[in-house]
């Protein structure tokens, strides 16, 4: 038992690793600040294109969304970071992560927002257009607010997935939370920094997850 506590819950090691992990957390936060808004934006564009009247816009978008939802994000990341250099394009790790996640997230957020868009009855647009609002005014003031509200729980839970997914960036040596914890583990030869990283993820995400469940129960009623 003591051995277990010493190996996994060693407060002394945790304290020593803390500054390193804090820097890692900063990088994780920075990644999230880049990939979540970009993913939402890409998702919005993907959703608009995939619900467009024009099949020349719709079909390629649907194909791309399918592709990036089917590809494991880790495969995508390694392809962008280690595959592209064979074409002479070596991206810095941060940029590689942002690009890979943009592609993956746009597909997922896109499907969620698309579901939101088609959940808004056609009569809403018709009413708006009948008062002289343009197509984009109708989208911005009438359709999107309702669409996003209808899928808000899904958008939030997907964002939780994205936060967790940023730990994949450790494989391209980006010093985010997990990478920093693993560094600390290898230096201290002790698993406690990993435990600490897990605790940090838990403390950050558990309230969101809890809130989501309550929120969804409320909607169900």
């Amino acid at each position: 038992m003591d051995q277990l506590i010493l190996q996994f819950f060693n407060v002394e090691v945790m304290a020593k690793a803390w500054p390193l992990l804090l820097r890692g957390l900063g990088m994780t936060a920075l990644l999230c600040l880049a990939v979540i808004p970009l993913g939402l934006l890409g998702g919005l564009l993907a959703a608009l294109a995939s619900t467009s009247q024009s099949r020349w816009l719709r079909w390629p978008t649907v194909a791309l969304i399918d592709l990036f939802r089917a590809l494991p994000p880790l495969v995508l990341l390694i392809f962008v970071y280690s595959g592209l250099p064979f074409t002479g394009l070596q991206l810095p790790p941060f940029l590689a992560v942002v690009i890979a996640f943009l592609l993956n997230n746009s597909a997922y957020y896109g499907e969620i927002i698309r579901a939101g868009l088609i959940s808004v009855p056609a009569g809403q647009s018709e009413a708006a257009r009948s008062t002289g609002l343009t197509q984009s005014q109708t989208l911005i003031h009438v359709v999107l607010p309702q669409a996003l509200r209808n899928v808000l729980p899904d958008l939030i839970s997907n964002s939780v997935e994205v936060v967790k997914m940023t730990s994949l960036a450790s494989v391209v040596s980006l010093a985010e939370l997990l990478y920093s914890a693993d560094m600390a583990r290898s230096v201290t030869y002790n698993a406690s920094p990993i435990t600490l990283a897990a605790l940090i993820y838990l403390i950050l995400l558990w309230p969101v997850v809890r809130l989501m469940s309550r929120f969804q129960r409320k909607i169900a009623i």
Partner: protein
Amino acid sequence: MSEMNATDRVGGTKPPTLQLSGLHKSFGTVEVLREIDLTVERGQMVFVLGRSGSGKSTMLRCCNRLEEPSAGSIFLEGQDICARGVDLDKIRRRIGMVFQSFNLYPHLDARRNVTLALRKVLKLGRDEADERATSALDRVGLANRADHYPGQLSGGQQQRVAIARAIALQPVVMLFDEPTSALDPELVGEVIAVMRELKDLHMTMLVVSHEMAFAREAADRVVFMADGRIVEDAPPEQFFTQPSEESTRAFLARYSA
């Protein structure tokens, strides 16, 4: 902008508010409107009756091009709104429309349902838009419900807000697409009362509805449609007492029975 004056041919008077001429509409191979000619003069209330599937709603929805006509022309105060290059959004702000299912914006309260187009289409300032919204809501008897969201209003109140949303833009004609069909019977009266008041204010109205008693009492003309055609067009007294067409008689017999 093509300003084709439809009545110049007949005389020099002001063109009718709304004129449909040779209107056709097909969905795929199904012809839902054939050779529709209809004139709504300024200040008139014209009722459109007919069985479901006779094309009434489609005809109404062609009038502001929510439905695109397959052929024919539509003139709004003499201007061909199907002409190439017309600014449809500019046309639509002059045509108010009221829908069967109200279609209020559920995320906005009654006031902002009315002000949205005032702000974004007419580009009015907040105060002026609020003022106009209040007076439009007052007209339908709901000024005291301005802060309520559609979900907090009864069906009849929602439809009255929808009417306020349309009249706030001061349209030259109002289209009503079965405005009372989705309402519980006890709520129909309040919507009809508002429409009657609009009629007293000489609003030009084209109304698709099954409210026969209201048509008989308030309409200037009643039009009967069957199979995508207008088969009867007469003043209400004549329409209800001595219709000229067999299909009109059959329809009236079924409804009054």
